[in-house]
């Protein structure tokens, strides 16, 4: 490692330039804009304008509630499912591992727009393959798009399908980095596979699990494409509107940048708070 200020900064310069212009300044700017009334020309400083409105806005609390609901249900289910996928894919008893891996990891490369379109068709009331299959086994059709509960469930199903394999890749890589001899010793001591999972794999994997949780929470916090395209702009009647969608509507449909910035900062505060709690929890137990 050499002490070379000028050389180092020459290598860093283009990156730091982009970083300053497109990240550092916007982070500050966004904060300032959140305290401005932006629908007057010129924008004027009005400290309570957006934040005061935010606190009393039912649309904000609706979006917050929906986002937290998805967060609380979908993220744990998806991480648990990803864990099951990773453990089973890691099993030496599995044949044709490549085929299974392809099945679970393929959605990782599928874009949100492409899969949103497919999910809309698959879940449509009268022509959707899912309702046809439900009918063919004697179950009633579900109106996925006009009732809130099925619509929320649909969003969660879609996001889980898209991201479970992605998390499974990360967890699988984590599992494969645990040294084999730990398990060999446990097997010699006749520790069952299930106990090995709970007493060896899970504790050693904790940092990786936290990493997956943090990434998933940040992703879910900003959920936009699925409620925008699958449930048609957060429908029915705002039932699937998320903070990401509220931000889009306020910022880019109503051109209310100040209010949208306040929403953005609420999302950031939530994401940071949840991340800190998670990091703190894992540190406590170590």
């Amino acid at each position, binding site marked *: 490692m050499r002490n070379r200020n000028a050389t180092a900064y020459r290598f860093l310069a283009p*990156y730091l330039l982009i970083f300053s212009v*497109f*990240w550092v300044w916007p982070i500050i700017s966004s904060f300032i804009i959140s305290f401005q009334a932006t629908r007057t020309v010129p924008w004027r400083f009005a400290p309570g304008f957006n934040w005061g409105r935010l606190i009393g806005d039912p649309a904000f609390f609706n979006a917050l509630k929906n986002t937290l609901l998805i967060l609380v249900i979908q993220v744990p289910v998806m991480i648990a499912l990803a864990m099951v996928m990773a453990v089973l894919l890691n099993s030496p008893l599995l044949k044709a591992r490549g085929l299974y891996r392809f099945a679970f990891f393929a959605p*990782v490369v599928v874009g949100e727009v492409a899969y949103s379109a497919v999910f809309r068709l698959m879940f449509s009331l009268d022509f959707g393959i899912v309702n046809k299959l439900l009918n063919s086994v004697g179950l009633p059709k579900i109106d996925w798009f006009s009732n809130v509960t099925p619509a929320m469930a649909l969003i969660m199903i879609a996001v889980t399908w898209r991201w479970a394999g992605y998390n499974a890749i990360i967890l699988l890589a984590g599992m494969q980095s645990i040294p084999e001899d730990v398990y060999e010793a446990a097997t010699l001591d006749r520790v069952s596979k299930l106990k090995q999972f709970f007493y060896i794999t899970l504790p050693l994997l904790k940092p990786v699990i936290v990493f997956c949780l943090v990434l998933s929470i940040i992703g879910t916090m900003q959920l936009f494409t699925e409620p925008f395209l699958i449930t048609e702009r957060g429908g029915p009647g705002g039932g699937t509107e998320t903070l990401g969608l509220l931000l889009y509507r306020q910022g880019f449909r109503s051109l209310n940048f100040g209010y949208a910035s306040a929403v953005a900062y609420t999302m950031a505060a939530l994401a940071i708070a949840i991340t800190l709690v998670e990091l703190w929890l894992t540190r406590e137990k170590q």
Partner: protein
Amino acid sequence: MSSLSSARLRRSIALHLFLTPLALIWLFPLWMMVVFSTMPDNGIFSPGIELLPHGNFVDNFNNLQRDTNFVGAIGISVSVAVTYTILSVLLTSMAGWALARYQFFGKGVVVGIIFGTITLPYAVVLIPQFIMVARDFQLANTWVALIVPPLFNSLGVLFMRQSFSMMPDDLFDAARVEGVKEWRIFLFVALPLARPMLAALAIILFLASWNNYLWPLLINSQPGSMTAPVALGTLIGLTKVSWGGIMAGAVMLTVPMLIVFVLLQRHFIAGIAAGAVK
């Protein structure tokens, strides 16, 4: 011996009995994407269950091309993703190299800030980025608007820093003794050695650009400047469009990536495992 292997056999069968239906459920939407893309619209909206492809892909594609200039949009998407990938790989590896191999004033601050942004939602910078690019720089509906702002990628830098810092000092010192300049050492010694990581990073970055939706939707919304996902997104939810066409577009966006995924699975998985994506 026989009791042990029969227990293993039973466990193996149970494993496959559980995983096979799960794998089929997971593949089902992809299969239906292909099926829908080959069906006439009256087939998609028929009461029967259709699980096998028909022969209507070309008609569907023609409808899509009529509804939105999809070939043009694909052209934009490919050009933007290729340019973005090259520039981003270069920028993040240069920064990673500086952070891995030099001691310099302010290093702790730089590393701390780059780390800190990983947990920051993109939403926080979205609005000022939009105002800046569209109003201040007047760059809406240009390629620059699609390529430059996303060049900041903190996980990519940390990823490259890691791979450069694992290389032995002697290698670079030998070149320095010969009087080779630092940027030549970076380009011709360090980068070739980091090839596996570069491949992984490039695939992940290409995919991120290819599938990016929100930013291109906001900044390049004029018909002639849309990327393919944005063009496709404009059709979803409209009533008078061809759903077969939308599915043909979805297939064109997805299948090439699936083929790349199968061919380069190792790099792909390495890239995601290293956390190179947000």
